[in-house]
């Protein structure tokens, strides 16, 4: 079916979410970064389930996200009554030089933490807010994507949303979003790799370009 309108896309996403909840009942969680895409996914699920999010919500705390993201996460978690599970790799935070080696940093602070959480909680599936139009590497992704390490499914219900669809959804449903978007940000990463503000003190090309280049490898490791 061709998804012409936003409402068509919402229906498609919620059908995928419904199928995922049935297939992986009791063994599924939703990964929520606090960004616009995963917040939209979370809201779609909440809307589908009559205003409650019936599954655990996983938030990966790298310890170096913007304070506005932490504030947003905690506020929404409280207002929406989320079963929020915050996981972080304290060992790695102590050991590595944050953002010095982008691949290592993302792997230790994100991919490794996701993998551990999946194993720890026995989840068979993890819902994420990926979109096809985000990155060329994501263009051929499927709604249910099997991952090897550890074995589980990635459920990607908003793959067909464009960036504009996301904002149209947020606007039409009055979904809350992080205040950084009102400061012009397009996407929210960790603070050291999403630099702006002080001329001459730091590299600031937005999301780190090297990281985009190694995205493919990181995704295979479980990073989203």
């Amino acid at each position: 079916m061709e998804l012409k309108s936003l409402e068509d896309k919402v229906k498609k996403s919620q059908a995928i979410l419904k199928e995922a909840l049935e297939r992986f009942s009791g063994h599924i969680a939703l990964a929520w970064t606090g960004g616009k895409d995963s917040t939209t996914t979370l809201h779609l699920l909440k809307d589908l389930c009559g205003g409650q999010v019936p599954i655990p919500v996983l938030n990966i705390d790298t310890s170096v996200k913007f304070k506005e993201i932490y504030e947003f996460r905690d506020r929404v978690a409280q207002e929406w009554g989320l079963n929020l599970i915050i996981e972080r790799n304290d060992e790695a935070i102590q050991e590595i030089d944050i953002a010095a080696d982008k691949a290592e940093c993302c792997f230790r602070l994100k991919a490794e933490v996701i993998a551990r959480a999946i194993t720890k909680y026995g989840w068979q599936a993890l819902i994420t807010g990926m979109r096809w139009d985000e990155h060329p590497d994501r263009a051929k992704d499927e709604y249910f994507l099997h991952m090897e390490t550890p074995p589980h499914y990635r459920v990607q219900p908003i793959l067909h949303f464009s960036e504009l669809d996301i904002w149209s959804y947020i606007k039409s449903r009055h979904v809350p979003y992080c205040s950084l978007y009102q400061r012009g940000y397009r996407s929210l990463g960790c603070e050291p790799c999403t630099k702006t503000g002080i001329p001459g003190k730091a590299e600031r090309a937005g999301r780190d370009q090297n990281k985009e280049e190694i995205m493919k490898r990181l995704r295979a490791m479980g990073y989203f």
Partner: protein
Amino acid sequence: MTSPQLPNIILVVMDTVGARRCSAYGHPRQTTPGLEAIAREGTLYRSCFASSAWTIPSHLSLFSGLYPSELGLEDKATRVPDIFHTLPEVLGLMGYHTVGISCNGLVGHQRGFDVFYEMDTPFFSEGYHRDKLDTKFIKEATDKELGRLWLFLKYIIQKQRFLFPIQNVLERLYKKHCIDLYFKTSGATRRSFKLAQYLINKYQGKQPLFLFLNLMETHWKYNPPPSYKNIIDISSEERQPLYQYDHQDFYIQAIPPEIMAKIYLLYEQSLYFLDEQLLDFYRILEVQGAKDNTLLVITSDHGEALGEHGLWGHIFGLYNEILQIPLVVKYPAGMAAPGESHRLAQLHDLFATILEVVDAPLPLPESSRSLLSAPREHAFAEHYQNIGLQAIKKQVPDYQPQPFMQPCRCVIDRDFFKLIEWADGRLELYDLNRDCEESRNLGSDPDLAPRVQSLRQVMLEKLGPFSENA
């Protein structure tokens, strides 16, 4: 609003036009009768300020809706950092065909433009300029020359653009030997409007068009066609002695006052020529039947000091001759009644305004206030990169900088009090209502001390400590 209903958006930046040079803003000579005519059918904003004193930060602010310090611009940055949205990018998402036409070498392609014409080109096909864009980033893809050549050849073969390399070589030769946009401005201005006219015709009824134009007529070296002589009658030969000077020379050597007087008048003559071209273009919009469904914006990136405060050009300071810019908006039919607005406005408010006009669902940046919503409380401007002093020191390495050569920033409130903060901590306060020439610094007036404190605090909250930016 669906794509076919969206209005065309034409954003014209008259590079280096200060509001006070325009008769539309009270200049005693008739420099901008065209702008006045357009303003009668649109909205003229009396109090619009740029967010910076020069081209790059000002344009990047316009394209992002953010202040220069929010963008975190490095010295050599010419593009909006990837982490922020750009105006053409958002309009592209909304279904617009986005085209840039720039006569200024410092205003290049921004993320989101489908086609970007740098006007020092002999070729005007969209295909050629799209090829230029598509191959622009090959040099960044690899350090190896052979690798770059391979990627280039691959592009040519895959896209079957066999003429492109030949055109590209010809263009390079043309740039090197035939054109200097800082000098041959009038030809570039005419070609820009002609190209705009062609594009409007081509896309009319097919796809909404976003057209950005930067015109360099009033940028030094002011060089209007000699046939335009209602303000100053000066032949091409007589102009040559003027062109030996550049802005930095004004601070290094004593340029004879009679030379400067001619230079200043030549600026106004350039403005008059540009204004006439602009009015012709506006009339063509009407003839093409495109006027009613077009949002036409005419503005500037900054002004130009012509002797005020001991300055020439726009390399030092944030005084009003540099900061206050013209802004005339002709909204699509039925959107806003014609008239004048005295609200406090800034160049980068156009980002939010345009997003509101096209009903884009994205959050508007807090720093950009739509002209169709409540007025802003404060306007800010920043000038940290000391390009002027760098240029001077290239010629005179041991040059002792003057106080006005320091980096600075300012805030203006809704009562039109303006506080300028310099890098060495000096503060200047001006009441723009009574003293728009900024001739009387009220910074030491004890009655105004609370206002100085409050403006300083507002600036600190918005822009952070000076030392972190300069």
